[in-house]
């Protein structure tokens, strides 16, 4: 997927200027946190669950090679073919060659952020394959030629009217009202059912990989991923290294956190563990199954100070809880992953040069870290990225200069206090009448959208010293 994260601010302005979509996002930001909070409260000790999974993740990441090897052994024993892909290109070409080996023309896909990351669809389509997204949200944006705006609800930015028009344009089904959400769902169901039945290859992602038995866990409400995994004769699971967990119980703990954080449910309609191709006892299912394990810089991240982002279980809660995501929507972030997790991942998976606004799209309010089921200190990681920007001089030179001057003054308190003691009364005098200033030199960033409240007058330190009370030194 082409990255446009360097245009974050322009995207954001455009998003803020669309009141209909802005309202849609505000509602998401209002209701999703309520659903999550209610589910967490009903759970009982959700915090203990969070801590437990974190411990298991730490353990797994520490011994990733061990668990990856174990997973591979078990998956091979189950009859899978296991592939490793260091880069997105390797994943894409592996998938394509599997499809070509089978002379496949039609591919049905379940929702997979990993294949968004590698832009698999483009690759397969260029080779002449028909690729159809089967998650309803993904299907809608695929038809619209758009990208996901949310990692859980990819098409939540679109209105019913837009989707209706899209379906009328794209589906040659004659006159029909198509006015209710249920009509949309029913129409997509009919079209996609055919695709499931005809596809020669099914592609799904995985929410977890279970090392002890080489199976993959898939969590959906629609059941589209399960149809992809059960109907086509060939199944390809596209996933990444860090999805590994030691035991089925650990995958279940992840599922508990994931679903409550994502939608507020206790369990999605379908939670499935798939282990490989048809067994003797089977009368259906794929005849051949492949698992592709993508690295795409995960091993680098593992070795870096950002390794905790690998604990992300893609629940989307940090998006729903982030006022900046809610304000500007997913497309503003300009790549696959938006919101706080995306602002960490995008610079790491692409480059900080291409996305240097993203780590700054954060007020450090800490709400995401508070609810992240994987206990990832997202604001800290974003601050670390800002530090890297500063070190690599990727932020604006004016900013750097300003901050350096400010810090210099802070280290010279006498001068700082003399200067501020002089400047503040001037500003106070300027703002005397209105109580605030509409413009201020060098502060357009503030006064473009806000008045600058005038200072009261002399600084506290000066007034206090005049009263002869300031402590020079502790005696």
């Amino acid at each position: 997927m082409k990255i446009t994260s360097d245009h974050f601010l322009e995207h954001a302005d455009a998003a803020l200027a669309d009141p209909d979509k802005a309202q849609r996002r505000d509602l998401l930001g209002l209701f999703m946190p309520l659903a999550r909070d209610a589910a967490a409260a009903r759970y009982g000790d959700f915090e203990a669950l969070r801590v437990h999974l974190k411990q298991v993740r730490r353990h797994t990441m520490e011994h990733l090679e061990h668990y990856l090897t174990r997973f591979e052994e078990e998956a091979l024993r189950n009859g899978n073919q296991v592939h490793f892909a260091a880069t997105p290109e390797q994943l894409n070409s592996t998938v394509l060659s599997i499809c070509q080996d089978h002379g496949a023309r039609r591919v049905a896909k379940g929702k997979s952020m990993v294949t968004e990351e590698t832009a698999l669809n483009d690759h397969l389509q260029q080779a002449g394959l028909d690729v159809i997204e089967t998650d309803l949200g993904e299907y809608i944006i695929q038809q619209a030629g758009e990208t996901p705006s949310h990692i859980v609800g990819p098409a939540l930015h679109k209105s019913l009217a837009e989707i209706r028009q899209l379906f009328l344009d794209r589906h040659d089904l004659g006159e029909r009202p198509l006015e209710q959400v249920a009509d949309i769902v029913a129409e997509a169901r009919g079209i996609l059912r055919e695709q499931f039945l005809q596809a020669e290859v099914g592609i799904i992602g995985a929410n977890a990989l279970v090392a002890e038995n080489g199976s993959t866990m898939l969590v959906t409400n629609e059941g589209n991923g399960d149809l992809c995994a059960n109907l086509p004769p060939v199944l390809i699971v596209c996933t990444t290294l860090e999805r590994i967990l030691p035991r089925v119980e650990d995958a279940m703990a992840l599922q508990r956190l994931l679903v409550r954080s994502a939608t507020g449910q206790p369990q999605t309609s379908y939670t499935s563990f798939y282990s490989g191709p048809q067994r003797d006892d089977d009368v259906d299912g794929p005849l051949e199954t492949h698992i592709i394990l993508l690295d795409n810089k995960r091993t680098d991240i593992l070795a870096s100070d950002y390794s905790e982002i690998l604990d992300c279980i893609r629940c989307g809660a940090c998006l729903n809880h982030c006022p900046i995501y809610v304000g500007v929507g997913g497309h503003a972030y300009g790549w696959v992953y938006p919101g706080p997790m995306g602002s960490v991942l995008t610079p790491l998976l692409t480059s900080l040069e291409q996305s240097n606004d993203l780590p700054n799209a954060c007020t450090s309010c800490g709400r995401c870290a508070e609810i992240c089921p994987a206990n990832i200190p997202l604001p800290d990681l974003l601050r670390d990225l800002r530090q890297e920007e500063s070190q690599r001089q990727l932020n604006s030179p004016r900013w750097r200069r300003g901050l350096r001057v400010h810090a210099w003054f802070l280290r010279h308190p006498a001068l700082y206090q003399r200067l501020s003691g002089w400047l503040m009364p001037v500003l106070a005098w300027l703002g005397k009448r209105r109580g605030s200033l509409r413009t201020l030199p060098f502060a357009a960033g503030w006064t473009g959208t806000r008045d600058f409240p005038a200072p009261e007058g002399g600084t506290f330190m000066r007034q206090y010293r005049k009263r002869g009370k300031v402590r020079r030194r502790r005696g």
Partner: protein
Amino acid sequence: MAESPRSEIMARLRAAAGASASATTPEQIARELAALGFASAAVLPAADTCIAFMANVLANKGSVELAADRAEAVRVVGRYLYNRFRTHKLVAGNDPRIAAMPWRDAGVLPRFGAAENGDGAALSYARLGVAETGAVVTWTGRANPGRNNLLPEDHLVLINREDVVATLEDAWLRIRQELPAGSWPRGINFIAGPSSTADVEAQLVMGAHGPRRWHVILVGATPAEALAEAKVLTAATGP
């Protein structure tokens, strides 16, 4: 020869982990893991496992009926099919437990095998029920082909009272007992609701791709009051 992606990735993992991890033996890793234990389960909505199970099935937008025994289960299924489809057609996997039921008594004509596109109702005999989440567990094979959970309009599930366990960990304990190492099936499915989507306008709609309705029949001596209590609980907590 160029390095394979596999060896490249493994080498990088080794480098990332540093010396400490590679010095750890598999036994040490297993001990470390065992020491972490399992997670604590969700609080059940009721002390009685079956009531909690039913309450959660209802919260998951399923429907529940009781059947004292298999003969009554046949009548319950027959009535359901007639009310919904005005037929007695049904598809079910080659599950000996289903095959042994007196279907003719209710005029039901099951077709045994895999569900096809266009089938109205499929019946599964669940291996387990999980009170914690209101899920039933099936696994793929002759007794319940994977597509039987997915293709029909309505998915009917029989579950024995005594097969309802409290937590997901309990469920895995039972699964491990029933499926000794090496006999792991192709797919293990936890089902906790009809196929649903909220992808359009965040509005919940049933029957996204699979079953529009999910009907759970609890087989065994369950008093009707238990079901009534489950309904009250679901109404009180809401989804």
